C-alpha cells in the first residue's frame, strides 16, 4: 500500500503538468452548515480519499475531487448561478424546489445517469423517491429525508400536573393541554405578582404578562402553509386547480386563528420577539417558553448541542377527534442532490451522487444528521447506533399513508409567499380565514393558469 503510494507520488511528480491537471475538480454546493454539513463533509472526504486511492492503483485514472461549498439561501443562489451560466456541478437542494427548477430548465434529467449507476427506484421508500420525480422525469435523488412530530417538554408537563409520558392525541386534547400549560404573571391590587395558569380571560390586559405558552401554532414559522393537511385539507384539488380554501384548510386556519384570539395578537408578537433561533438554547421550545411544538426529526440534535439533559417526548401530531383517519399525518420532505443544467461535469457529479447513495454511506450520512434513511431496507446497525430515541417514530411517519409533501408545481414560490401572507393576516386577526384564503385561491388559480400557458407556449404537454 505504502509502496503504491510512494510510487504514485513519484509518477505524479514526474508526470508533465497536464497530468496534475488530470484531477477532475467538481464543485458541490450544500445548503447545510452545522452538524448536518459536518456529516456531509465526512462523506466528501471519504469520496476524495477513495478517488485518490483509485488513482494510486490505476495509473491512467483521473481522480475526481469534490469541493464542498456551504452556500446559505442555496435555493436562491443556485437559481441565480445556474441562470447566470456559472452553476456548481452538483448541489444539495430541498425537494420542494425541484418542480420549479425543472420547469425553468435549471436541472439535468437524472434518469439515464441513474440507470447507468444502477440506482433503482425500488430501493427507496416510494414517497421520498417520488419527491424528485416531476413530469415523468427524475430530476433529483433524495439523500436525507425528514418528517415532523409534536414535541413536548416533560418538565413543563409535570409542573402543570400532566402525565409527562402522555401526549395529546386529538386536536381537542392538544387545546386542553395547551390551556393548562399557559402561564401568566398577574399583578394584584396589592402590587404583588402571582403566577397563574390558563387563559385568564377575566384578568384585564394590563394586569397580566405572558411567561409561558402551551402551544403556538406557527412556531417555528417554517410551515405556515401546511396546517390544512392535519385537518384533511389540500392545497391542490387536482393538477390544474388550487384549493387553499377547501373545508379542511378553512377548519385548520380557524383553529390557528383561535390561538390569536385567546392569547392576543400584540402579546404573541412581543412574546415571540424574545425567541432565539431554533437551534439555540434561547429557542421557544428549549428555553421553556413554549411547551409543545411541531418540530422535525432534527430537534434531537439541537437538544444535544444546546440543552443537554433537556427532557422531551415526541408523538404524531394530533388529528381532529372526528377525523381519526387523519392520524399519523406528517409533512415528509427530503434533502435531494441535483445536477444543475450546464454542469460541466455531470458524469463526475453522478459518480459522487452514486457514492453518497450507497446504502452504507447513506446510513452514515443520515446518522450524522440524526435522521432516518430514505431507503426501504435499513441495517440493524443503523437502529442500534442511532442517537435519536424517537427515530422509529419519524420513519413511520415518513412512510405513513398520511405523509404529505408540498405540491409539485412550478409556482410553489409564489404560492408559498401568498400562503405565508394569508396566514399572517389570519394570525393578526386582520382578515378571517375565509377571505384571506379565498384571495389566495383566486390569485393562485390565475398563476397556475398563467404557468400552464407558459408551458404550452414552450410545447410541453
Amino acid at each position, binding site marked *: 500500500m505504502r509502496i503504491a503510494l510512494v510510487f504514485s507520488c513519484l509518477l505524479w511528480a514526474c508526470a508533465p503538468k497536464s497530468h496534475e491537471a488530470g484531477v477532475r*475538480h467538481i*464543485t458541490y*454546493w450544500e445548503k447545510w*452548515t*452545522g*452538524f448536518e*454539513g*459536518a456529516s456531509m*463533509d465526512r462523506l466528501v472526504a471519504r469520496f476524495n480519499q477513495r478517488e485518490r486511492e483509485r488513482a494510486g492503483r490505476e495509473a491512467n485514472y483521473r481522480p475526481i*475531487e469534490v*469541493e464542498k*461549498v*456551504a*452556500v*446559505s*439561501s442555496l435555493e436562491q*443562489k*443556485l437559481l*441565480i*448561478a445556474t*441562470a*447566470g*451560466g*456559472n452553476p456548481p456541478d452538483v448541489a444539495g437542494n430541498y425537494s420542494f424546489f425541484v418542480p420549479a427548477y425543472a420547469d425553468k430548465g435549471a436541472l439535468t434529467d437524472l434518469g439515464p445517469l441513474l440507470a447507468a449507476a444502477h440506482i433503482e427506484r425500488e430501493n427507496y421508500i416510494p414517497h421520498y423517491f417520488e419527491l424528485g420525480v416531476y413530469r415523468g422525469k427524475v430530476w433529483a435523488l433524495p439523500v436525507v429525508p425528514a418528517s415532523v412530530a409534536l414535541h413536548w417538554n416533560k418538565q413543563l408537563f409535570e409542573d402543570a400536573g400532566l402525565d409527562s409520558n402522555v401526549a395529546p392525541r386529538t386536536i381537542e386534547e392538544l387545546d386542553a393541554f395547551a390551556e393548562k400549560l399557559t402561564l401568566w404573571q398577574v399583578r394584584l391590587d396589592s402590587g404583588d405578582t402571582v403566577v397563574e395558569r390558563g387563559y385568564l380571560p377575566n384578568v384585564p390586559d394590563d394586569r397580566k404578562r405572558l411567561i409561558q405558552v402551551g402551544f403556538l401554532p406557527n412556531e417555528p414559522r417554517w410551515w405556515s402553509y401546511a396546517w390544512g393537511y392535519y385537518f384533511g385539507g389540500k392545497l391542490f384539488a387536482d393538477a390544474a386547480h388550487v384549493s387553499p380554501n377547501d373545508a379542511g384548510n378553512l377548519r385548520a386556519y380557524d383553529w390557528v386563528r383561535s390561538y390569536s384570539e385567546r392569547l392576543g395578537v400584540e402579546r404573541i408578537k412581543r412574546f415571540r420577539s*424574545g*425567541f*432565539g*433561533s431554533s437551534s*439555540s*438554547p*434561547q429557542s421557544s421550545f428549549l*428555553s421553556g417558553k413554549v411547551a409543545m411544538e411541531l418540530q422535525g426529526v432534527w430537534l434531537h440534535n439541537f437538544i444535544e*448541542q*444546546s*440543552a*443537554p*439533559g433537556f427532557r422531551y417526548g415526541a408523538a404524531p401530531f394530533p388529528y381532529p377527534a372526528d377525523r381519526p383517519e387523519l392520524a399519523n399525518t406528517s409533512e415528509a420532505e427530503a434533502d435531494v442532490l441535483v445536477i444543475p443544467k450546464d454542469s460541466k461535469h455531470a458524469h463526475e457529479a453522478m459518480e459522487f451522487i452514486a457514492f453518497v447513495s450507497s446504502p452504507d454511506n447513506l446510513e452514515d450520512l443520515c446518522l450524522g444528521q440524526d435522521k432516518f434513511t430514505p431507503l426501504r431496507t435499513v441495517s440493524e446497525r443503523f437502529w442500534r447506533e442511532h442517537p435519536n430515541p424517537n427515530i422509529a417514530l419519524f420513519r413511520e411517519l415518513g412512510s405513513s399513508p398520511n405523509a404529505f409533501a408540498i405540491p409539485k408545481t412550478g409556482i410553489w414560490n409564489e404560492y408559498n409567499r401568498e400562503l405565508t401572507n394569508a396566514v399572517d393576516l389570519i394570525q393578526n386577526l386582520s382578515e378571517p380565514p375565509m377571505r384571506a384564503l379565498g384571495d389566495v385561491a383566486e390569485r393562485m388559480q390565475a398563476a397556475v393558469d398563467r404557468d400552464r400557458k407558459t408551458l404550452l407556449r414552450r410545447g410541453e404537454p
Partner: protein
Amino acid sequence: MKRRPSPNPLQRTHPLVHVPLLILAGIFTLPLLWLIATSFEPREQIGKVPPEWLPRQYYIERQGAPITVTPPVPFEKGWVHVSEWSPSKYHGGKVTSFLLRPRDVKTRIAPVWQNYPEAIRALSSSEQDKQRPLGELLARSSMPWTPKSDRSKSVTFLSYLANTLLVALLGMVGTVASSALVAYGLSRIEWRGRSALFNVTLATMMVPFPVLMIPLYGVFRSLGWIGTLLPLWVPAFCGGAFNIFLLRQFFLTIPSELSDAARIDGCSEFGIFWRIILPLARPALAVVALFHFLYAWNDFLGPLIYLTEPRTFTMALGLSQYQSQNGGSEWHLLMAASVLLIAPVVALFFVAQRTFIQGISTTGMGGR
C-alpha cells in the same frame, strides 16, 4: 464656492438654541451608543427586560478562580442549570454544565471584548473553522486571488474584507481614471458630437440601478461573470454619468490659457490632461474617489444579485447572510460585526472630513 459669513436670523438669538440641538444630537447619537453597548455585552444580557446599557459579566467562583457563566434569564427556580456554551463554545467543542444556586452567580461590570473575535469567527462559513484559534482561522482565509480549487483555504471574515476592499479600491481607481478622461474629452476638447454625447450622459443620470439590474444580469451572464467579483468593479472603468458630469463642470472652471500655453510648448493632449488638469482637479477627484469607495463599501443589492459563492461575498452580504441564517438572538455578535463594518467608514470620515462636507455641499451626493 465662496462663503460669506452671513448674519443670519438665528445668530443673534440666545444660547437657548443649544437645548433643541442637544436633545436632537442625543436622539441621533443614541442608536450608535446602543450599537456599541450591545456589542460589548455577554449573550445572557441580550433580551433582558428592561435592557441594560453597561455590559455585565456573570461569574461563579470555583476553587478561588472566577469562571464566566451564562445563566438563563431570569433565574426562576431554586437551582439553575448553567450550560457554558459561549464564548468557550468554539474552543472546547463540548458544552460544560454546572448546577448552581442563583446566589452563587455574581456579576460585575466588564466589557466582553471576546464578542469581536467571536463575531469574526461566527461569520466564517465552515463549521470546523469556527473552532480554530482566531489567528489560525484568519491565516487560512481564502483571498480574491486564491484559486478556486485550493482546498486548504476557507471563507472567513478576512475573505469578505478582502473582497470588499478589492471591489471598492479597484472601482475607485477605475471610476476616477475613466471619469476624468471622459470629462476631459467632454470639456477641454472641442469636437462635433460633444454636446450630443454630453446630453445623453446627462439623461442617463436618471436611470436607477434597479431598472438595469435584470438586463445587466443578462450582460454579465454572457460575459461569464456571474458568481465573480467582476460585475462589481469592471463597469467602474467605463466611467459613471454623474462623476463625468461633476468633473466636467470642474474642468470647465480651469482657464483655457493653461492648456493653450502647454500646447504651444508641444505638450500632447494626454500630457495636458495628465500634467496640468489632473493636479489642479485634485479636490474634485478626491470627492469622486471617496464617494465611489463609500458606495461600493455600502452596496448590497449588486452583490446580492451577482455573487453566488461565499468566497466572493462582500462584508455587507456576508453579514446579512449570517443574520438570515442565525439571526434571532445573537444580537451581541451581530452588533459587533456591524461595528466592524461601520468602523472603516467612520475612520474615513474623520480622516477626510473636509472632502466629505465639501463634496456633499457642492455636489449634493454622498455615496448613497
